[in-house]
């Protein structure tokens, strides 16, 4: 097998040095009664060519689309070629967590810069080296809020949060009978301040709201956080489309006490939902309660600046059952993608791309509303996603688009009560005007056929 350095001569030499006849002799630690007495019932070793062909066949079973208008938590954005090239360097992608700083300064300095950028985007003071994804980041944020808020045991969750984030939250809280999750209703596509006010009391540790929310709408964090703070609750801003940070003010600057969410938009493919990039940023006062790896700046014996993993007293390998979280491996390489993507984009590029996202989405919405069978649902401001109600035959319409190589937006019917027959459309800098016109053309055809 090409990956194994085995050769009769070499194997014999090793076994002789050890003083055994065969490798099996080294299994003495595994009692005979516990051994597998047969070969694994799996295919044999295969050449690279054969494996490549098999996997290409498998990948070809997925339908590909020239044009995509689907977001809903996983966004197709442009990624400079330099990013893929860089993360492919063995120095980055094969390395382990930087336990030995003297031989891992590359990874450590990168994380320190990444942390700086996440704080910059969120307007908060402390963050970590990454969390698994948007959904699990919500769980860590909510549990941290409960720790920080001591005896408060209730967490309010806006129904504007991604439905799957909410399910991950429920699963994470299930094991804690002492804690409860309460939903907050939507009104006109954003968190209903009335319902929120009604549910806020001094048992509420925190409130989670989307920014922008699942519908792509821009929540007024300022107003919501004022409400929350009024009752001593923390406001946790949840962002599923981090590209919005190039369009919207940093949550930390408009009242959010914590910001978490998903940053896959910075240089990562949709890749069926993973690996993605969870993030969580908090205030300095709360830094010792943050979960996960944190990198800090320090100096070496000769006073030169360097970087190390720090605040480890929070972590599982030191605190064990009193750790702030059990997380160990995180999404390191995806954080590297995000860091490099952001450094290449810079302020001009980032704000410029975000503005193009908004422009494409606004144009798409306007063109769709010119069609007879598409209706506005609510008119909250939005970033690069928005819902519209479809009065025609949903199934036929979707099928027609797919036949034309267009992946339509998400059918909200099964995902959000009150949005039956609505489609969540997403447009990014990758959607050309030509693609939009083509979409409209096909939809118009469908309409005329049906009507």
């Amino acid at each position, binding site marked *: 097998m090409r990956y194994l350095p085995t050769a009769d001569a070499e194997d014999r030499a*090793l076994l002789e040095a050890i003083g055994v006849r065969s490798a099996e002799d080294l299994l003495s630690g595994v009692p005979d009664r516990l051994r597998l007495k047969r070969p694994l019932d799996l295919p044999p070793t295969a050449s690279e060519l054969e494996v490549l062909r098999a996997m290409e066949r498998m990948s070809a079973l997925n339908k590909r689309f020239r044009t995509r208008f689907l977001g809903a*938590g996983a966004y197709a954005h442009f990624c400079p070629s330099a990013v893929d090239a860089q993360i492919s360097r063995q120095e980055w992608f094969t390395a382990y967590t930087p336990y030995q700083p003297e031989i891992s300064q590359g990874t450590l300095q990168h994380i320190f810069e990444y942390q700086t950028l996440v704080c910059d985007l969120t307007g908060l003071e402390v963050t970590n080296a990454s969390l698994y994804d948007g959904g699990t980041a919500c769980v860590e944020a909510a549990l941290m809020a409960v720790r920080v808020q001591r005896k408060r045991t209730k967490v309010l969750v806006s129904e504007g949060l991604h439905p799957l984030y909410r399910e991950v939250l429920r699963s994470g809280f299930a094991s804690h009978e002492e804690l409860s999750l309460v939903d907050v209703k939507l009104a006109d596509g954003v968190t209903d301040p009335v319902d929120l006010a009604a549910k806020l009391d001094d048992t509420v540790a925190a409130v989670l709201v989307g920014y922008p929310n699942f519908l792509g709408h821009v929540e007024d964090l300022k107003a919501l956080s004022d409400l929350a703070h009024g009752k001593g609750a923390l406001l946790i801003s949840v962002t599923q489309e981090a590209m919005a940070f190039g369009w919207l003010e940093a949550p930390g600057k408009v009242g959010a006490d914590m910001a978490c969410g998903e940053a896959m938009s910075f240089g990562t493919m949709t890749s069926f939902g*993973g690996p993605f990039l969870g993030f969580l940023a908090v205030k300095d006062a709360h830094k010792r309660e943050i979960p996960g790896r944190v990198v800090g700046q320090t100096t070496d014996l000769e006073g030169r600046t360097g970087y190390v993993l720090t605040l480890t007293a929070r972590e599982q390998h030191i605190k064990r059952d009193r750790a702030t979280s059990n997380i160990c491996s995180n999404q390191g390489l995806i954080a590297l993608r995000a860091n490099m993507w952001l450094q290449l984009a810079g302020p001009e590029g980032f704000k410029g791309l975000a503005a193009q996202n908004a422009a494409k989405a606004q144009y798409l919405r306007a063109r769709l509303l010119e069609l007879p069978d598409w209706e506005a649902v609510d008119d909250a401001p939005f970033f690069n996603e928005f819902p519209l109600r479809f009065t025609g035959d949903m199934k036929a319409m979707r099928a027609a688009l797919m036949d034309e190589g267009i992946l339509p937006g998400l059918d909200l019917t099964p995902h959000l009560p009150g949005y039956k027959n609505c489609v969540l459309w997403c447009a990014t800098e990758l959607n050309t005007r030509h693609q939009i016109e083509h979409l409209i053309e096909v939809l118009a055809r469908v309409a005329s056929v049906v009507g």
Partner: protein
Amino acid sequence: MNLRKREPLIFERSVPGKVGLDLPVLDVPPAADTRPDHLRRESFDALPSCSEPEVIRHFTRLSQWNYGMDQGMYPLGSCTMKHNPRLNERVASLPGFADSHPMADEGLVQGNLALIFTLQEWLKEITGLAAVTLQPSAGAAGELTGVQLIRAYHVANGRKRKVILIPDSAHGTNPATAAMAGYEVLDVASAADGTVSFEDVTDPVSGKVKQGLTSLLAEHHDEVAGLMVTNPNTLGIFEHRIDAICKAIHDVGGLVYMDGANMNALVGVARPGDFGVDVMHMNLHKTMSTPHGGGGPGAGPVACTKALEPFLPRPVVVRDTVKVGEGEVPQHTYRWDWDRPKSIGKVHTFFGNFGMLVRAMTYCLSHGGDGLRDATLRAIVNANYIRRQLLGVYNLPIESPTMHEVVFNDAIQARNDVHTLDIAKRLIDYGFHPPTIYFPMVVSGALMIEPTESESREELDAFVDAMKAIAKEAEENPDLLHQAPVTAPLRRLDETTAARKPVLRWTKG
């Protein structure tokens, strides 16, 4: 070759006006500004302005201060640093996989569902268990999933149980996970041979008595939700009484969770499902060589028995087989089953770190059943070769048979006031990444060495020679080791100050 001594933070390099990314010409009307004034993004405090070449050089230079698997042996015990085939990277980037969308209708992603289904089948055969979920993002996430399955199982059976037993040699994620799942953790003593002790154990020094499995179960039997055990354990030793341990736990109505981080020592040799384990995780970023990426992403699939299957995270992939006709090859279609009333819900927003699953599947197909077993055996041979070569040079605190990794400590060198940290740092000067140190905690000054099957005899010998040279230096010139590393771009770093006065981000100054 990077002979520069320092790479400034990118923020120090930023010059307003430089661009690293040109915008496409906007082909639609510019966006109307619908944002409330106070929600308009005006500026950034740190985001740098640099040209593309500057950013590329910045990261390239930084990368050159890392050490990777393609350079040499990376003997981090328990981390299983093995060869990361480029084929796996290439396959994961096939557009069919990389561009597929998690919210797309299942009919559009049959390839992904087929891959998930197939990889689950491989892992079932490898673990000997009945069901598998690929949703957990890493080992710790797998542990949490597994413990939540145990909890759901007890709840479903109307049992109130609040204790999880964990051997003191366990990895930190085990107790942290149990706590995160709302359980109280009780340590189980380790016997002199390094495995789980049934009897209580008295510490020769402190005289403190640590409870063994028997007395713990006697005391807490109906509170015990289960046991989390690592096998082979963190000493690289196979729990030779694992079947008896499982029986003891089952007898009190508990379930056994196996931390499968060390499955690379068992694949093709023994199967947890065969020796009584109820639920376990595997680290695909260890056993199946998906790259560690400087900290992640990983993938921590969970395998469990039929009894636990109903509680698995949703959705679950289902295969429908259509026989096309007489003697023809059966055609398969796949779908998601979301209707899982007993499911613990979701442990990842979508379906886990899918890109890692693609790499793991590729790794499995490349090795095949025979190759996987050969890899296991070679990993064990390599660990034993190192054990044999360093025996007497370094102290071997526990002499039970070594599986895939061997744990020495600094007892011999300590006589010259040379300690594990010194030895580790000195290895850097010899061009090797140090082993895992000070873990497991049951061994003082542990040096945990895991070569994996990827290492050739030549590389093993180079490592052994370095370790021997260091032992010699410890005798003749201990201070040299206290100074190490001396050839790396940085000397030892001040971690105390870093933690006492944390500087966690750059700020304009």
